[in-house]
């Protein structure tokens, strides 16, 4: 990925303010370029099927759940943390909402159940981390194990088929010709973007991740905020659980497997610093799409998944290297 320096003539004032913005834009442009190139590769190898409406819809529906989880993960990572438990929370929420007992109460209760289980798990993470002072890696690793265990126990390791037809009809349907899952993905991203970039909550998230001590001494309740951020991540997992259940018409303890890794990878590729304080949801969205398109290209061309995984690994390393060169530029400028 070459970082071409595109100079927009009208935004080139003598003393170049808002370099930060431009760096970000530059990187996003680069990422978007990668996405376009990948789409071109897809089109070149499968001109008859790649850019069809059906394939794009399939790709987006596949990307939906992981995309929603990545929104929550972006908040967590910008706030300076990490969440390894998202996959297990997706599994637990999905299993809990599809038990025979829950399904008997109807679709509304099923949806509420998934959201509440997700939110609850996230808040437990947040409380352990902020008030229990357990480092995020360990606290969410514990949640990863126990949520997974609870999901297995609830389901008896069996796949629970959704018999509630109201639920499947709605979530598998279309609105204005676009699948509900894609609407949901778009809605979560839009709400997330506004929350992160236009509200006091987002401002505090950046502050806590950028310099927790400075945020604390500015009068921000860092612990409460941290707890809330993990709550949001959990809620996103609950929404993702709905999507997975709708797509597969079943809930199982194996749902959401490796979501934590895919989500972290998408966030990092999107240019969010793992150390916190800087990041962008649009970058995360592009990161998710890049992974989805790569996966689709491999599936369309009947290539092995192992090669696909190698490609994913290469993309992650390349993105991090790119991030480091930009970080070094910054360091040179500030000192």
């Amino acid at each position, binding site marked *: 990925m070459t970082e071409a320096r595109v100079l927009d003539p009208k935004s080139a004032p003598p*003393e170049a*303010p*808002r*370099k*930060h913005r431009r760096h970000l834009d530059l990187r996003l442009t680069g990422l978007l370029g990668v996405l376009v190139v990948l789409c071109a590769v897809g089109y070149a190898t499968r001109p008859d099927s790649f850019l069809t409406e059906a394939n794009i819809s399939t790709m987006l529906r596949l990307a939906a759940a992981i995309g929603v989880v990545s929104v929550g993960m972006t908040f967590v990572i910008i706030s300076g943390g990490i969440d390894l438990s998202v996959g297990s929370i997706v599994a637990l929420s999905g299993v809990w909402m599809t038990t025979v007992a829950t399904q008997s109460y109807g679709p509304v209760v099923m949806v509420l159940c998934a959201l509440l289980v997700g939110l609850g798990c996230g808040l437990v993470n947040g409380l352990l981390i902020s008030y229990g002072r357990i480092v995020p890696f360990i606290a969410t690793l514990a949640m990863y194990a126990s949520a997974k265990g609870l999901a297995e126990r609830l389901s008896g390791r069996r796949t629970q088929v959704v018999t509630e037809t109201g639920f499947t009809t709605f979530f598998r349907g279309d609105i204005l010709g676009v699948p509900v899952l894609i609407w949901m993905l778009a809605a979560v991203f839009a709400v997330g973007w506004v929350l992160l970039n*236009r*509200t*006091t*909550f987002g*401002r*505090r998230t*950046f*502050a806590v991740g*950028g*310099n927790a*001590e*400075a*945020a*604390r*001494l*500015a*009068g*921000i*309740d860092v612990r409460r905020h941290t707890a809330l951020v993990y709550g949001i991540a959990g809620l996103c997992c609950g929404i993702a659980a709905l999507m997975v259940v709708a797509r597969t018409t079943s809930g199982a303890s194996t749902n959401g497997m490796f979501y934590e890794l895919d989500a972290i990878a998408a966030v990092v590729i999107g240019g969010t610093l793992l150390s916190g*304080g*800087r990041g962008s949801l649009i970058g995360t969205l592009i990161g998710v799409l890049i992974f989805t398109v790569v996966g689709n290209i491999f599936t369309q061309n009947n290539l092995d998944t192992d090669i696909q995984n190698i490609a994913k690994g290469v993309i992650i390393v390349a993105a991090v290297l790119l991030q480091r060169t930009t970080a070094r530029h*910054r360091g040179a*400028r*500030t*000192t």
Partner: protein
Amino acid sequence: MQAQKEGRRESNLLRMAGIGKTFPGVRALDQVDLDVAEGEVHCLLGQNGAGKSTLIKVLSGAHQPDDGEITWRGAPTTLPSPVAALRLGIATMYQELDLVPDISVAENVFLGHEPTRFGFTRRAAARDRTQRLMTRLGHPEIDPDREVGRLSAAGMQLVSMARALAHDARLIVMDEPTAALAADEVDNLFRIVGELTGAGVSVLYISHRLDEIRRIGTRVTVLKDGRTVAANLPAHTPTADLVDLMSGRKVETVFPHRDTSTVDTSREVLTVTDLTREGEFKDVTFHVHAGEVLGIAGLVGAGRSEILETVFGARKPDSGHVAVDGRPVRPGSVVAAVKAGIGLAPEERKAQGLLLDLSVAHNVTLSSLPAYSRAGFMDRARELKDSKATLERLDLRPADPGRLVAEFSGGNQQKAVVARWLVRGCKVLLLDEPTRGVDVGARAELYRVIHELAAAGVAVVLVSSEVAEVLGLADRVLVLRDGEVVEDRRADELTEAAVLDIVMSGSAITESAITESAITENTAAVTEEEVQ
């Protein structure tokens, strides 16, 4: 220069001449000269910020000087790295001991130069040699296998010294070695220093305690504002002369005239009663009126920053109360303190004050987010407008609120921190070392800002390592020593020399000390001329 250069000693071990070192925004060292003879205890004296620490770091190879020459045993040399300094025979015992707490005494002593055979460490040999070093240092009871983190402060110091000896050091730099020691441990340290110098090893000894210097010192070099103002004085130079040398006022620093009519003595804004934190400070009581500037003077480690942070709720007091406008503030909660109207510009501007990744506007409104939002949504237009107005009021240049705060100079960054509390409209502003790392021109502007804030009715508390600054800016001064308030007086009743005398000599001030110092102030003025 008033340097009383004695006839050059025959065996000159180290000679530093014209050493200069500039950090961004600060000239930390400017023309420093230092001579250390073999087998002497050479004392380095100077106020906080005079450049002692930087000089030590140059000597230990941690910093590279910009100019100047270093001569080691008659031959010019450079100290490109800590390892190079150690190889030459210069070992440094830092104030914050650089030991690894989780490994054993012997491993610490031989860290980085473990005795080996065929690539395997010879742990028994390391243990034996450590045991012998500890015996030599008078503490054979310290077990070489003991974890360093479980030793007392004095024990750690011995380990640090053993490490210096294990390197066959010719010069040992000791940075305030007695700061953490009890009286009998100090005696033991001095006995060891005596033995070392008897064996031809030299010691560069840094301490604020003049009585110690008199006890073990051979010669004294005085630093001030990064310069050597007196070199190779005999250790028995009278205290008053040494204090004068350290305190001669900086010529370029001009403090604005203080109009004390802004002080509203009828309104006590900040009241601090019997505030105590075990091991940090004890029974601290003071009050600040509206429009008043209270200065806090004291050495580093006397509890200055700790008191400010406790008032601000960033540390929880063991006992005592803080009240704003007569209403008690919940202890140990920054959120409560900010709500009550207290603001803090912390000591470490970058680590504790600023979000370097964010714009100035975002930094400025960080403490007032609810005021700049409606139902949680940021009112960005008003945010920009108000930040810009505040930046202009503080003369922060360039007054571009969209710019990253990391791109500004130290003085302007400090203004951004002050702007945060201005925007919030705080009643009490705590300033911890507001001019650290700020160049002279920007300092004058900050001084003006501080006075303007007071004029606007804010109660200001100012902590500074520079006594002159505290006296020049404050209406009233608290002097701290070892966590206790030993003096509370109007600033115009104190002189820099008197304050230094209180914080350094270890004796509580008496009326006679004040008059005496007031007299020596005149001599200081003379000295200053000579220095220039």
